[in-house]
């Protein structure tokens, strides 16, 4: 359908209905798809690149689903013990769970199993990473403000569900390192006052390591329950997005009451399909080129064995870091022990984090008193306080993430582990404050300075007849002023293209309320 360069005059008038038209008509007669389809196809997407960040998450999720289905065909979710006699000789004759044995088999014996396994893992890491980046764009531009608070909450739920599902998946191979992770999760459950021991027994079906029920339970959560919820929430997320229409950056012809950008069909459809393949391509390249989680080197999980240098995947890093640098405080009395050193960082901290994230839009409304509807985005520098708070939070979680590798850092820089530990206890508090203040200052300075953020005009160096050199500013080049974003009129929703004036893919403007 690439009709760029055509004018309507080129096209034969009175086009004969094609087979596609007939099929669509058939469907429309029965289901009335034309109206919804029109809304969908006329959905306008702002062209700014940061609006593609959410799509990275969406497409990594697609890759996760596809590769996950493949893995499900070969993975055996069971802790029943077997003796391994497979391709990988160092483990020959070792007793291990079926889960571990089948993962080694996927890596060594199943054709392209390892590429798919590694793709799945890289896709999970990228999925959660892109959610975080997407969330940053929503946060720093104020896209979460009224009327989009609900969608923000859906987004936060997606973030935490994705993290939980990542942890569950990481635990499935039952190797030594992930087994240690499950063990830590068990201890965290135990640390909850009053209900901890009951909860842990309930989840694990007994005292750790349970009666072999934990892997099957994690499996069904990981491949069915959570993906279904995540998929449902993504649906809700996108439904709300279409319903409320996109936000946009302020600019020429863009107001609170319109959206300027490319229509879903054909422009954005082409772009986004290409983007899907590129995301998949990058993940595929990572899966083929970079090793991730070589579980055959770790050996099967045995509760009394332990390896050093164990970290969880990066998205659990902030929790692991909090656990590591927490001083060992404990409350003992009344016949009970509350291990604060586990409970505070392991339960209370993520709990508070999620509550803060969920309620941020309302908190901000309370603080600023701004309860108006906003469809135009903020430039981060124009909201120095929000930007500073966001940057400080990012620094805080990044520091915690770094703290999850205390041992690696100590080893790499050849300093004492204790020194690294104490350094992080301070750094985690000091660095966010510095980053926050610094960001605040930069924002203020940027708003004050003229021409910051504008595209630089080319400079010509001119030599005069006498040999003197002078610089003059060049005339604006086409594109410098973004005239291409000039809005063009579009037809209303239900009208077909026959009676509309605008057939070209290109920039359109639609009214927000119909």
């Amino acid at each position: 359908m690439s009709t760029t360069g055509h004018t309507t005059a080129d096209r034969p008038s009175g086009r004969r209905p094609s087979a596609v038209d007939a099929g669509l008509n058939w469907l429309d007669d029965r289901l009335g798809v034309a109206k919804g389809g029109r809304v969908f196809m006329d959905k306008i997407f702002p062209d700014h690149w940061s609006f593609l960040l959410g799509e990275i998450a969406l497409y990594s999720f697609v890759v996760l689903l596809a590769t996950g289905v493949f893995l499900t065909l070969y993975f055996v979710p069971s802790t029943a013990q077997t003796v391994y006699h497979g391709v990988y000789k160092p483990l020959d004759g070792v007793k291990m769970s079926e889960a571990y044995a089948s993962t080694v088999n996927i890596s060594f014996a199943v054709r392209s199993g390892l590429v798919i396994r590694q793709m799945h893992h890289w896709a999970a890491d990228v999925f959660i990473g892109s959610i975080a980046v997407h969330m940053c764009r929503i946060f720093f531009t104020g896209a979460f403000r009224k009327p989009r608070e609900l969608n923000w909450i859906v987004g936060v739920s997606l973030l935490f569900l994705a993290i939980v599902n990542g942890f569950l998946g990481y635990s499935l191979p039952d190797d030594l390192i992930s087994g240690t992770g499950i063990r830590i999760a068990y201890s965290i459950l135990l640390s909850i006052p009053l209900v901890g021991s009951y909860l842990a027994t309930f989840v694990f079906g007994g005292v750790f390591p349970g009666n072999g029920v934990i892997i099957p339970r994690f499996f069904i959560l990981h491949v069915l329950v959570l993906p279904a919820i995540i998929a449902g929430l993504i649906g809700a997320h996108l439904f709300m997005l279409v319903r409320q229409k996109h936000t946009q950056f302020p600019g020429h012809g863009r107001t609170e009451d319109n959206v300027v950008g490319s229509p879903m069909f054909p422009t954005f459809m082409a772009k986004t399909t290409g983007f899907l393949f590129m995301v998949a391509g990058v993940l595929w390249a990572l899966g083929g080129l970079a090793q991730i989680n070589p579980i055959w080197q770790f050996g099967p999980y045995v509760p009394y064995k332990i390896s050093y240098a164990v970290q969880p995947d990066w998205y659990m890093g902030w929790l692991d870091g909090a656990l590591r640098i927490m001083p060992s405080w404990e409350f003992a009395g009344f016949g009970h022990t509350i291990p604060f050193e586990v409970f505070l960082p392991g339960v209370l901290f993520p709990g508070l984090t999620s509550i803060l994230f969920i309620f941020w839009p309302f908190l901000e409304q309370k603080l600023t008193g701004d309860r108006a509807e906003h469809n135009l985005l903020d430039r981060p520098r124009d909201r120095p306080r929000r930007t500073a708070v966001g940057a400080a939070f990012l620094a805080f979680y990044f520091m915690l993430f770094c703290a999850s590798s205390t041992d690696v850092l100590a080893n790499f820089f050849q300093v004492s582990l204790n020194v690294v530990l104490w350094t992080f206890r301070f750094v985690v508090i000091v660095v966010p404050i510095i980053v926050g203040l610094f960001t605040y200052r930069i924002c203020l300075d940027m708003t004050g300075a003229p021409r910051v953020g504008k595209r630089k005009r080319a400079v010509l160096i001119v030599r005069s007849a006498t040999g003197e050199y002078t610089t003059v500013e060049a005339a604006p080049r086409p594109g410098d002023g973004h005239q291409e974003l000039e809005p063009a009129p579009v037809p209303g929703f239900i009208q077909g293209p026959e009676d509309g004036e605008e057939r070209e893919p290109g920039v359109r403007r639609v009214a927000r309320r119909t």
Partner: protein
Amino acid sequence: MRNLRRTIRVRHLVPVGLVLAVAVGGLLVSLSAGASTRARTVPSGSQALAATPPPIRYVGNFTSSQVREGQLLFEANCSSCHGDRAQGAVGPNLQGLGPATVDFWVSTGRMPLADASVQATQKPPRFNGQQATAIAAFVASLAPTGQGFPSGIPHVDTRNASLAMGNRLFVLNCAACHTITGAGDALAAGAYAPSLHVATPTQVAEAIRTGPGNMPVFGSGTLSDAQVADIVAYVTGPIQHPNNRGGLGLGGIGPVAEGFVALLIGVGGIMLIAFWLGERA
């Protein structure tokens, strides 16, 4: 018609080509990596032999010329710290530690020590194997080898060793300090367990039997000679030459490196693509 052809410009094919190149490249490399590792199968040491030699031979009878050579080397390089009869001065008393201990510290380059304030580290050894043996012979000649130390320098025969057993014993006894991939890691208060990627079979056995520095001694009551040989086979086999199927090994330090790759190359790379696809203002 001419119009139409003009519209399909090369520029429009760039994204398609890029994706194809990336995908096909990844596929090819991963397949070839798989094929090459498949060809290089891991040696298994469990062929039965007719007459089984002992898994470890402890060589402890040295010639007098070795002792004399060792004395010269010791006096020139070690006596300033350990005293001329190895009775101890700045450095500890070495008498009775046995030849294996001395051979380990010298052949791994730990001795002679450069800086007494930190844990002695592996560094390129100053002496060759023969000279190290001579120094060990001299120190051993000074006093009878003490209780619990091996009487000679261990020579390990890994032909009958079991990698599977070695794996199990390694995870059980060594991974807690040296990590599961043998990359080594920091222990408490400035001490660290070194990487196992350069140790020779003899050095691994010496380390196990003599427990250098903060490492515990694993005596013959804890690990039999056959078990030590299993561990040695595992360390000098899969640990030092890991089966890095599936691409770049990323240093064997696990999720930290993986996280950075995922965020910088994965998310970062895709963001660059988004930046290229989208408008910038």
